[in-house]
């Protein structure tokens, strides 16, 4: 079983679904901020990880994750409880991420930066291969490889292989057909694979 799933199940078993429902009810009826922060605590890392991996920038990711939770707080009355809360939250997160990418694309400066040659991290973070066995480094490595994959494919790869969602769930979340999900995933994995193994060769000793 995946780490994410393990941890998620652990958290869910700890607080139980009823607890979550109770929190949502409290926020809806009393605008209870404490309840809201308890709810955020359950999903903060999961949503933050999704956003961070998609955007690749720590500051942007933190800000956007906050905005996602603020949006959830404002629109909570629209959540009817017919699908899991995380699913609803992820939908907001995905919309925010895709919008953010759109906005950034308009920013020519950022575009120029992303077109710059080789990634700097190769020569900074990964200079010494003996240091890079830690999980954090692994995260960094994968995240930066992910940034080289085009956003449409990147999102599907994150949702399928990191978040562990099914094809059907992704097609619902992204509002596209199952066929589209399949082809995007296939192309995304292919791109990521090429990038990852190319960089891995360059970094040489890096063990994954």
């Amino acid at each position, binding site marked *: 079983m*995946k*780490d*994410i799933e393990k*941890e998620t199940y652990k958290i869910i078993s700890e607080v139980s679904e009823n607890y979550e429902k109770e929190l949502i009810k409290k926020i809806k009826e009393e*605008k209870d*901020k404490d309840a*809201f*922060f308890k709810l*955020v605590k359950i999903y*903060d*890392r*999961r949503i*933050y*990880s999704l956003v*961070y*991996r998609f955007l690749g920038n*720590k500051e942007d*990711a*933190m*800000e956007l*994750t*906050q*905005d996602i*939770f*603020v949006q959830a*707080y*404002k629109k909570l009355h629209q959540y009817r409880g017919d699908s899991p809360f995380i699913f609803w939250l992820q939908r907001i997160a995905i919309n925010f991420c895709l919008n953010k990418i759109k906005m950034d694309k308009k920013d020519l400066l950022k575009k120029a930066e992303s077109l710059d040659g080789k990634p700097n991290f190769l020569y900074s973070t990964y200079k010494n291969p003996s240091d890079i066995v830690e*999980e*954090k480094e*692994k*995260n960094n490595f*994968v*995240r930066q490889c992910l940034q080289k994959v085009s956003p449409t494919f990147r999102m599907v*790869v994150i949702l399928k*292989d*990191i978040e*562990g969602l099914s*094809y059907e769930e992704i097609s619902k979340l992204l509002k596209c057909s199952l066929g589209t999900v*399949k082809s995007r*995933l*296939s192309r995304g*994995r*292919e791109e*990521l*694979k090429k990038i*990852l*193994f190319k960089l891995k060769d360059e970094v040489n000793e890096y063990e*994954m």
Partner: protein
Amino acid sequence: MKCKVVRENLSLYIDEKCEVGVRESIRKHLEKCKDCFEELSKLKHLVSVLKELPYEEIPEEFYIDLDKKIEYADTPLWKKVYLIFNLKTALVMLIGILIGMIIGVGIVNVFFKDSKQFIGGRNYNHVVVKTPDLAMASDKIDELRKKYKTESEQFTAAKIIPKRYTIVINGNDYENFVKELNKVGFLNDKIMVLKQQKYPKPITIDLELEEIKEGE
């Protein structure tokens, strides 16, 4: 099956989402083709790496800023506007509005003082005369107009429509004019306010005749 087709389907193959026939052909191809098999292992490796990724560490300042943002989201709109315009700007705006109002009132007093009478900022010159006999009342008012007509050309009485009149009279004549109007019909009570004051300047009166049925 060609290598190109196999590679395109590898992603579905590892997820076991291929059709049975396709799956079987890929499996057979992989047994023979070393390159494709290597691609498969790379892909499997990639997927396993992604699956094993731990969560990212959330920055410490995350909750501090989130708290502020939630606080702001809960702030009512008027307060947000208030926050944007600080006290100083608000004061300047208020003084500006006040000055504007004073100038406005000044202009009205200077340029329109002769044509309209203002009492407490409101124009009380609208008079409604209720009468059972319109024709008779109309004739009487015509007489009154001739009698109280001011000399100044611009204040000449003008009949707008048969039931409505604009009459300009001297302020000093006002009391007598009202007395005579009372004989024509029943007046609205606003006229009483004017009665107690003295008006040396001409007053414009919008007069309206309203027919009432007998017995009312």
